[in-house]
């Protein structure tokens, strides 16, 4: 197993190198003056000359790539000219929103998609099955941004004076306080460092923060704000998961060992949940892993519609505003995150199916 993990890990190194190369090419290929692209339009010639010297932008392209690689390996992502702060700090502020949103969407899509898929498979060709599949087909065909706007229209406008009203944007209502985890727990943390960063990160995820600090007012409010974005973002993966759960379950239910289990008198319920479900997990893991990619892409749209300042929306705004410090850093982080997730999917695959790691 360890050997397999190491092999897969080393196999992803060329990909990581490729990502760095693509991101480097991206920032150098963008039309226009690199200095003003990074420092902003208002930079004077004098400042620019100094900047170009400093960053080595007058050196040959290969040397520049070398400099860039060194900077990246040290985690020096530079500054954002629009926000006037280090990109890493911006990332630390914005990433928790996206992580919270993606996880909510993913968990929602799993707790709805998997049972629906199993029920449709067990009750094959029944009305439950037909409705689930029609809905799943529509689900994968809906544009995320349209679904989000329609949800906001229905739940924030049409259901305005009912208990079903949900806020159309933002993460928490004004007036709701969200003291950080460290504060509530009475921890004294150093100014900077890994532990402080970690606590800061989890405190910025409102739902998790509320759970850890038993702040139920915040919990209710944060969940209310999260429902619409999570449903909008989670619908496509939910439909994909339901479809995959159904088809792989159908596959497994047709196997001989299921008949054997039934023949020896086990309850159907147990056969489905213990024998069949475990074996139908494998394709499901792949779909869930692949959905994460579409979640990250969809996060750009969902965050834009629901006014959440997460990584996706920040990256999109940075691209249109040509804030290359952010573009470079965020692209790399997202891609690396994605590669790591794929690695985890592969490893769990090998864990679930020993044949894979032995080959």
């Amino acid at each position: 197993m360890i050997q397999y993990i190491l092999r897969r890990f080393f196999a992803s190194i060329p990909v990581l190198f490729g990502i760095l190369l693509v991101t480097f090419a991206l920032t150098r290929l963008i039309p226009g003056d690199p200095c003003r692209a990074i420092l902003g339009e208002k930079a004077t010639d004098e400042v620019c000359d100094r900047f170009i010297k400093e960053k080595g932008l007058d050196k040959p392209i290969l040397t520049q790539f070398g400099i860039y690689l060194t900077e990246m390996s040290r985690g020096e992502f530079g500054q954002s000219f629009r926000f006037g702060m280090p990109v890493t700090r911006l990332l630390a502020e914005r990433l928790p929103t996206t992580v919270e949103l993606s996880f909510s969407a993913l968990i929602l899509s799993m707790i709805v998609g998997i049972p629906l898929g199993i029920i449709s498979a067990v009750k094959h060709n029944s009305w439950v099955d037909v409705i689930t599949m029609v809905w799943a087909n529509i689900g994968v065909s809906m544009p995320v941004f349209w679904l989000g706007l329609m949800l906001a229209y229905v739940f924030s406008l049409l259901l305005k004076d009912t208990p079903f009203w949900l806020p159309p944007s933002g993460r928490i209502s004004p007036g709701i306080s969200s003291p950080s985890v460290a504060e509530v727990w009475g921890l004294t943390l150093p100014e900077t460092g890994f532990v402080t960063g970690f606590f800061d990160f989890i405190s910025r995820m409102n739902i998790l923060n509320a759970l850890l600090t038993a702040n139920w007012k915040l919990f209710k409010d944060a969940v209310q704000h999260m429902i619409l974005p999570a449903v909008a973002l989670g619908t496509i993966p939910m439909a994909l998961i339901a479809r995959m759960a159904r088809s792989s379950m159908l596959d497994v239910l047709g196997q001989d060992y299921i008949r054997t289990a039934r023949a020896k008198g086990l309850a159907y319920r147990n056969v489905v949940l213990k024998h069949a479900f475990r074996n139908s997990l494998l394709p499901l893991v792949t779909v869930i892993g692949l959905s994460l990619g579409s979640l990250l892409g969809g996060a750009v749209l969902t965050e834009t519609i629901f006014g959440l300042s997460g990584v996706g929306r920040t990256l999109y705004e940075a691209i249109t505003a040509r804030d290359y410090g952010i573009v470079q850093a965020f692209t790399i982080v997202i891609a690396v995150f994605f590669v790591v997730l794929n690695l985890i999917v592969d490893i769990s695959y090998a864990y679930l199916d020993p044949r894979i790691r032995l080959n």
Partner: protein
Amino acid sequence: MNQENKVAALDAEAMSIKSVSLWRITWRRLFRRRSAVVGMIILGILVVIALTAQWIAPYDPLQVLIGIEPVKQRQAPCIHLFGCPEDQPQHIAGIDGNVRDEFSRLLYGTRVSLWIGLSTVTFAIVIGTILGALSGYFGGWVDNVIMRIMDVLLAFPSLLLAIAIVTVLGPGLTNALLAIGIVSIPSYARVVRASVLSVREMDYVSATRALGGSNFDILFRRILPNAMTPLIVQGTLGIATAILDAAALSFLGLGAQPPMPEWGSMLGSERNQVFTAPHLVFLPGFAIMLTVLSFNLLGDGLRDALDPRLAHNT
């Protein structure tokens, strides 16, 4: 009729049956699946709308109606059949933010969307097939280099990569199509590579080589036809994804530019009006969904119909 003629006729019949059988079987199986039929019907209607848009659209999609008709900006739909006063001009889908007939724009949008789907997927299939075929056929370092590049492309969430490529190329429909085409190359390359690998070592391929067939002959005449079936399925489903991604890019203002009647950009430019003029957000999005749905249903149906494991069902 003499004996010889009969035999010739039978021969001809047998040959004609043989030559169409694969497609006929597929066709027949496709028609047996209700979802595939629904997909084909929706798609058929959309194709008809796209081809006849200039005759069935009541207005020019770009014509601003200020001073021509007594209509207001973002006016709700007015349908005579449903009680809209007869003295008002009929606008089935209402008026958009620039005082144009939304319905005509929606009809013309069909053209743009189908064109987007077909052109990007054709582009991706051509490049993907070449790369996948080279990779699978030659193996070794060629395979390694090509597939690592594909891995890198797959390492970015496709929409984000498309956004990044459009930024480099500059916003606009053509560049957006190119970007979506590029990000979808890897899936076709992988499909083709897999089918090439599965038949590369087969006896009939070695036989062609022994008979003096060139690499080109072997690859394009003997090996690639095997990749047709998975490519058709992948391509049909790929059109659905391409239309969705293109709509998303246009929604963000990076794809089709106003005043082009493209659904994503129509929706995007009115997105802040969702509470006051919901029809301008609902209808273009619904049109996108319907188009994407039709390709998804057809693609799923094709996959089942072309699956040799289900052959005994015909």
